């Protein structure tokens, strides 16, 4: 029989992944908020969510591939761009003013929300030349790595706002997220200073 705590964490992981997998966003927000509400220390909550996300993004990507929710031409450009943006972001993490990044991401998400609502109401979509796949991947990976906003909401909102089919945007962004998450995590691990030595793991 499952213990109460174990069942609770499985239910939490299930709920967060169901929403994130179906809509392409909000795993970190839901999981981290719930863990903090349960009394988990912030650093432990963040580390747990990122560790779980590395696995669940891979599973979600496989599920979207199985259900044919993926536009492979988008993944071919989005994933490499996201990986490059994520690696750059992980390297410059401490050199950017957090407040400015948060303000930018807040207004970006608002603008994308309004674009999607306009698309819903009028059928008009954003400019595909302005919202090109590679810049979206670079920017979303970069901002995801520096903690300014999640990969899912940043990339998905832009793709949907420019007129891509939501199902294919969500699937393509979901599969690309696996590569971006692994790249960012690997960069963080490679550049961490081990305790007591002060030396960089990457030299």
């Amino acid at each position, binding site marked *: 029989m499952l213990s109460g705590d174990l069942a609770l964490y499985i239910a939490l992981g299930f709920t967060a992944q*169901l929403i994130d997998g*179906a*809509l*392409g966003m909000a795993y970190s927000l839901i999981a981290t908020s719930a863990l903090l509400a349960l009394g988990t220390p912030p650093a432990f909550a963040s580390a747990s969510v990122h560790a779980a996300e590395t696995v669940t993004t891979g599973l979600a990507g496989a599920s979207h591939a199985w*259900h044919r929710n993926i536009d492979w031409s988008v993944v071919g450009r989005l994933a490499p761009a996201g990986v490059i943006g994520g690696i750059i972001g992980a390297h410059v993490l401490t050199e950017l003013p957090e*407040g400015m990044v948060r303000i930018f991401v807040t207004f970006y998400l608002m603008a994308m*929300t309004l674009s*999607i609502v306009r698309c*819903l109401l009028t059928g008009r979509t954003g400019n595909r030349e302005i919202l090109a796949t590679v810049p979206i991947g670079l920017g979303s990976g970069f901002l995801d790595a520096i903690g300014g906003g999640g990969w899912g909401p940043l990339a998905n909102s832009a793709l949907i706002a420019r007129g891509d089919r939501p199902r294919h945007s969500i699937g393509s962004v979901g599969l690309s997220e696996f590569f971006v998450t692994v790249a960012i995590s690997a960069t963080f691990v490679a550049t961490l200073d081990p305790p007591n030595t002060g030396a960089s793991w990457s030299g």
Partner: protein
Amino acid sequence: MIVGGALAAPLAGWLSRVLPLSELMTLVAFILAGMSIYNFARLGAA
């Protein structure tokens, strides 16, 4: 959480496929609006 996520992943992919276009976009817009408000609240609290 990984076990929960693994159980949900197949269902989530299926949901993305079967949900009607307008409902999927409405749900995405709803989540984005929630995140924007959440970010605003955090900015205001800072």
